């Protein structure tokens, strides 16, 4: 019967296709925690796979690190940008090997995580700038905006681009009468937490209204998932304004605002301005700190530090020893070679004092009470 042959033929074709593609796959050895460890000298690659999830804010630099880390050590890092809230949740639930967040875990979140058997450790990695990006025909350069104005825009009190409050800070600029559409996050986001933290500092209306949190009740605007979603919203909607990390703004060639900082200077987001926000900061023992609204006169006021979340004792929290070792390798890469890569994407590396403390935390990571050995 002819259809039987047809069916057999198509099945074989599909299998052959699959086999051919799998066969030519020289990347990503299958995972499961088996790897040959490299002890000093690193002739053999470590291999293996680790899974991480969290903030979209640092996703560009983490994914660049992942690509280079893989070339160097053969380990595949699957990083899923699902937002800081998702990162904390997945990390606490133990469904990923490491989490990532731009907003330090709250005490109740830490309590939930501790039920896993170990304490979460915040390892700061890089700093980035939360830009106020907009897409308005007729405004081609950076507008000067202060915190209260930005808050009023996101509260929906300022409805048009030629509003007097904006015009008064930008004398000489031709502002069109376009309506403002706000783009914000619809998921739980560390970027939102940092942005709203800045707004709360400058606007009592914001403080008593939406407040500071990873997810707030937005009075107006369109919601989108992730920094990439907000970037998409800004790109697609004329007259829109949104808050996205600088890498996303640069990639999409958005016009970004110069924000007034604590010293009264209007600062554009830039690598130097972001780094300046971390200068002179003495972080607490658990390294849970924020660089929003820095007093440094050169600092961009909405600069945020971002963290990787790992377990103080990974094996007590349910990880196996090999995975713990690979995660430690990954952290060492981030605090080592990764710091040189970050500026290429306009993320500021950590200042030395913070980096030393972060490295100490990583060195202190344990598996069942013993230090994790063999990490390069």
């Amino acid at each position, binding site marked *: 019967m002819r*259809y039987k042959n*047809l069916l057999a033929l198509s099945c074989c074709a599909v299998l052959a*296709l699959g086999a051919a*593609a799998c066969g030519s796959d020289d990347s990503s050895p*299958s995972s499961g925690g088996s790897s040959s460890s490299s002890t000093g000298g690193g002739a053999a690659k470590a291999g293996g796979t680790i899974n991480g999830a969290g903030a979209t804010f640092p*996703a560009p630099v983490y994914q*660049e690190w992942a690509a280079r880390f893989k070339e160097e050590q053969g380990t595949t890092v699957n990083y899923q940008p699902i937002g800081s809230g998702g990162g904390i949740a997945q990390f606490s639930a133990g469904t990923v090997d490491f989490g990532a967040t731009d907003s330090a875990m709250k005490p109740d979140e830490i309590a939930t995580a501790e039920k896993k058997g170990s304490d979460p450790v915040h390892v700061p990695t890089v700093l980035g700038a939360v830009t106020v990006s907009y897409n308005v025909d007729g405004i081609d350069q950076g507008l000067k905006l202060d915190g209260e104005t930005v808050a009023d825009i996101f509260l929906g009190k300022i409805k048009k681009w030629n509003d007097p409050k904006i015009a008064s800070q930008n004398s000489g600029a031709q502002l069109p009468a376009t309506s403002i559409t706000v783009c914000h996050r619809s998921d739980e986001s560390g970027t939102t937490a940092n942005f709203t933290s800045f707004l709360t500092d400058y606007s009592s209306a914001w403080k008593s209204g939406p407040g500071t949190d990873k997810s707030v009740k937005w009075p107006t605007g369109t919601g989108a998932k992730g920094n*990439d*979603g907000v970037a998409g919203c800004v790109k697609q909607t004329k007259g829109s304004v949104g808050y996205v990390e600088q890498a996303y703004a640069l990639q999409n060639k958005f016009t970004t605002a110069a924000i007034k900082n604590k010293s009264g200077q209007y600062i554009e987001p830039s690598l130097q301005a972001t780094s300046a926000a971390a200068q002179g900061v003495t972080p607490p023992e658990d390294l849970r700190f924020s660089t929003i609204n820095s007093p440094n006169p050169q600092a961009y006021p909405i600069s945020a530090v971002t963290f990787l979340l790992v377990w103080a004792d990974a094996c007590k929290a349910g990880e196996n020893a090999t995975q713990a070792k690979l995660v430690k390798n990954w952290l060492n890469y981030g605090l080592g070679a990764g710091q040189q890569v970050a500026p290429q*994407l306009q993320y500021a590396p950590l200042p030395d004092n913070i980096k030393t403390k972060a490295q100490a935390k990583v060195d202190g990571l344990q598996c069942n009470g013993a230090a994790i050995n063999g990490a390069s």
Partner: protein
Amino acid sequence: MSAVAQRSLRPVGPRRRRSDAIARGVVLAFTIVAIVPLVAILYWLVKEGLGAWSKSFFTTDPTGRFLGDPGGIRSAILGTIEMVALASIIAVPAGVGVALYLVEYGKLSRFANTVRYFVDVMTGVPSVVFGLFVYIVLVVTKVAGTFAAWKGAVALALLMLPVVIRSAEVVLNLVPNSLREAALALGAPRWKVIFRIVLPTALPGIVTGSLLAVARAAGETAPLLFTAAFVLGSSADLSQRMNSLPLQIFNDVGQAQDRLVQRAWGAALTLVVLVLLLTLIARLIQRRSKLSP
């Protein structure tokens, strides 16, 4: 006689002719309106998606890199094939088995009717609820790891099961009873009648129904979100996360980068071609079979 019938007895005047023409015009217009989206979608798929197709599109994995090469969709295609294949291996034999029970043994008994009712219930369950169920039962409880491709396949199999059962039951019912009775009269045991006579006769119809179920499963996103999750690389390891075409498209949809959106279109075109091919093969088999519902 009713008013309408009374009116009808009179010769057709211009007013009735006009309302007839208008009504028929409206019906035709609505029918065209139904076709327009399909044409539009196919047009846009080809227009935007074909440009994304290239050799590297099909042979490289997505890299996830922000700058530089975003990669292709190889892991998505492989993942869909692997998970749908596993789902079919689970769902088709089980579904045909249940259909066999309903047709050969249960017939119109209370038990069989209850089973039929619940299979009907299953067809109406939204796919996201199936995914949620597998998430609660297999992923959260950490049965053999957290997210895994085989769990995604289980969710897809649950989706396919009622479709396979229903279509197989219809086809099995169409096998003429005379064939069964002739075989039984010759002394063949029941199981031989089923495996040597009934199944082979119904095979084209069963294959058609299964292929249609496969086509549906290949396009489902929601069940895979909570079970197989998303990953960039290809692998044959079903105990780990696995990429799939629908998830790859879902991830690329909201991106601001144009080339990622274009990759979504390319992946969408690939998926639609795959689904249409399966549907086409299914219909061809149906046409050639001797039994048609």
